[in-house]
């Protein structure tokens, strides 16, 4: 399921994304399974990828949060306790000491790819 082309890793098909919301995909990094939350606001818009693990609620749920904006930042709100995470950097807006991993993404021939 994961095909490597340079350091871009294919995660899923563009069709697997849900517009205006998030989905979760499973990849492998460093030999370990990694849950990735993928978000897309609009049909042709950019895709954002964060670690699916909510470090505050301590559960794998970020893909199920509501996405939106705070000021000029695009964010997802954790469905557990509603902290906001920057979709581009993974930074938690309520607590600067908390940050979840974020990946660069691109669409390549209808496939969603992450830069690992």
């Amino acid at each position, binding site marked *: *399921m994961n095909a490597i082309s340079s350091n871009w890793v294919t*995660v*899923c098909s563009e069709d*697997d*994304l*849900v*517009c*205006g*919301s998030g*989905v*979760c*995909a*499973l*990849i492998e990094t460093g030999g370990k*399974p990694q*849950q990735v939350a*993928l978000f897309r*606001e609009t049909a042709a818009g950019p895709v954002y990828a964060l670690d699916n*693990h909510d470090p505050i*609620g*301590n*559960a*794998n*749920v970020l893909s*199920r*949060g*509501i*996405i*939106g*904006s*705070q*000021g000029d930042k*695009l*964010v997802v*709100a954790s*469905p*557990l306790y*509603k902290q*906001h995470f920057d979709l581009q950097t993974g930074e938690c807006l309520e607590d600067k000491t908390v940050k979840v991993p974020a990946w660069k993404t691109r669409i390549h021939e209808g496939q969603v790819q992450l830069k690992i």
Partner: protein
Amino acid sequence: MAKQRVVVVGNGMVGHRFIEYLLESPAAGQFEIITFSEESRLAYDRVHLSAYFTGSTAADLALTTREYYRDKGVNFVLNDKVISIDEPNKCVVTQSGRREPYDKLILATGSYPFVPPVPGKEKEHCLVYRTIDDLGRIKVSGSQSKVGVVIGGGLLGLEAANALKGMGLETHVIEFASRLMAVQLDDGGSKLLRRKIEALGVKVHTGKNTREIVEGTTCRYRLNFTDGSFLETDLVLFSAGIRPQDELALTCNLGVGTRGGFTINNNCKTSEQDIYAIGECAAWNNQCFGLVAPGYQMARVVVSQLTGGSEQFLGADMSTKLKLLGIDVASVGDSTARTQGARTYCYNDDFAEQYKCLVVSEDGKLLLGAVLVGDTEDFGNFQQMMLNKMALPANPQGMILPGIEGGKVGLGVDALPDTAQICSCHSVSKGSICSLVQSGTTSVAGIKAATKAGTGCGGCAVLLKQVVDAELTKLGVEVSNSICEHFAYTRRELADLIRVNRIRTFPEMLNAHGKGHGCDICKPAIGSILASFWNDYVLKPEHVGLQDTNDAFLGNLQKDGTYSVVPRIAGGEITPDKLIMLGQVAKAFNLYTKITGGQRVDLFGARIDQLPAIWKLLVEAGFETGHAYGKAVRTVKSCVGSTWCRYGVDDSVGFAIAIEERYKGLRSPHKLKFAVSGCTRECAEAQSKDVGVIATEHGWNLYVCGNGGMRPRHADLLASGLDRATLIKYVDRFLMFYCRTADRLQRTSVWLENMEGGLDYLKSVVVDDKLGLGAELEAGMAAVIATYQCEWLTTLENPEQLKRFRQFVNCPGKDQDLAYVVERGQRRPATAEERKIALVNLEE
């Protein structure tokens, strides 16, 4: 010109504040500062010392850092106590023999805990509560003890008792006087405080004088009291008051007050040239002040004196507001009515556990003091009235009586003069706050940052907000009620826009009336309004991103990321077969099972990828979704009623089922709970529900806007003696009116409380149809009812939708981080500790 050397003896809260004020002054460059402390740390927050027991570290409590002092050129010497003053040579001498010359000497030596001369007081586990090091010792001793005693039932003693209790010790408080907090509270307030403290498990012994501390038999020590009784304990904490640390006076003939403390005049100068004293070690008019606010004032006065100003110290208000063992306690001014001829108004409520007492002048015109226990919200107002000698209203008792119809009498912040000091810790006046608001600082946070107001003891927070809001209103600035940064409207306005303009989707709404991308506040709110009016399937592609996770996956998210499943059981009536079916489904998926308060069954621990399979079985067995996940009509609870009950007047179960079937799935500003009782014994508890129906001999009585839970409210009778059809008509109107006009997440109880005109107005709309909206509201409800669908049935029939119920979109599999343990025969999520073991087991 050479810099003046300022030596500050003591680096406590006041000594440090003095340094800060001096650094902030325009003349700061003319001084060289050196400060001495006998402790190993620079200044820390002694007021919130007890936080050290609840997880705060010394660093959290620190008021400054070494780097900051170095940066500002402040010299400091720790662990070296100043032991004498060589006044003729203008030098101080420290324990280590260091001599430090001064031009100006500031004594900020604070106080020390008074330990009564009880034989045995020097034993190893007899401790005091003053410094961080003391707290360290208490922690160590506490870990080796089962029982702890605090000697002293004053303010600090009760803080100390909280610390002991927090460490899990059986805790006792011994007080010499006949009541707790004898200085601040009157009898009535003290009595209630004692009751509340005892309810927390702390044992209080008043009127006890400790004679000696000897070896114990069941515990480490035994306290023998002068009345012949005794108490065994492992740990003794002395908290019998503080005494000014003034022994330096002996080394250079400084004057001291009759009850100790370096004598100071209005300039905070001692009896000797160039020597000042500030804080708890200073005696002004023979009075020492054991609070930080007066100490800060003295610090400001000395800085003013040193830099050519003329500020003076003219006494201080000793009013206090604090939380002791979680109990709100406040005392204002002459709280114990010592003033000649003083009279009191008292209000005591043993049920709500509140006590309020006003002390007024003999002629009843001025407020002299007050005691508040259990509810201290009025502290700021009373303090201001007292300090500013404001005239009392005609019926002062109205200020302490609870909010009965007609409301509490208050003066409001508008009545305060501009000179009124709102924050006494940082001396911030109402006038200075108002002028900041006028010049554009319009948030409480901004005012706090600019003035430090509200950042000391925090006692003025309520008043501060009132002053800011009142000033904004005066300036004609509308206090923002916008739902969020994306829509400058209230929920009610959003609902009107959507309804009148027939808006069907969020993007339409955002383009027409909003900005940005939306967020987790406005998206679900608008999603809910769209559902209330148009009742589309909530998981349609254009709506799915608006839903909170509960609605998005039609289940209730639990702490570990799994969901709970609640099928509808209308009226709480269920056949044995269906009940068995529920059990079988729960068993098949190993779901934790619990009966809810709404007469249903909640099945916990369903993974996202299991939800469709679970619901397939449930739907096949004839169940429908229960909307437990939505801000929607949840349940209609019922008693068994006339069908079985000997006392039943009418068929409550039948009517409850009819009502639940009618309104099921209605999405609303918040969740809605109903109940129907078959007689006035009220076994269904209908009067604690949003809609409550009770059968009487004369027909059905309709109650509305009740609430249980966090903020209980008894429902109000909207109409009585109704037939079923009329009752349904009124409920239709009531619910639709609520959906249109309530704020986001506002329960019906709060909605009614905030409604102008209150219950009478609601009656005029729903019963008398004064607005002529009745037919329209009923039509709105009819449309929602006509478009009802079981969201799970629709979802199961839609393969595209079912794709969303996968853990991973790119492969099969489940969340591997879930871990469970079995308790009382069912599984539950493992705690963090248990997880470590459980995960190891999984890997094996």
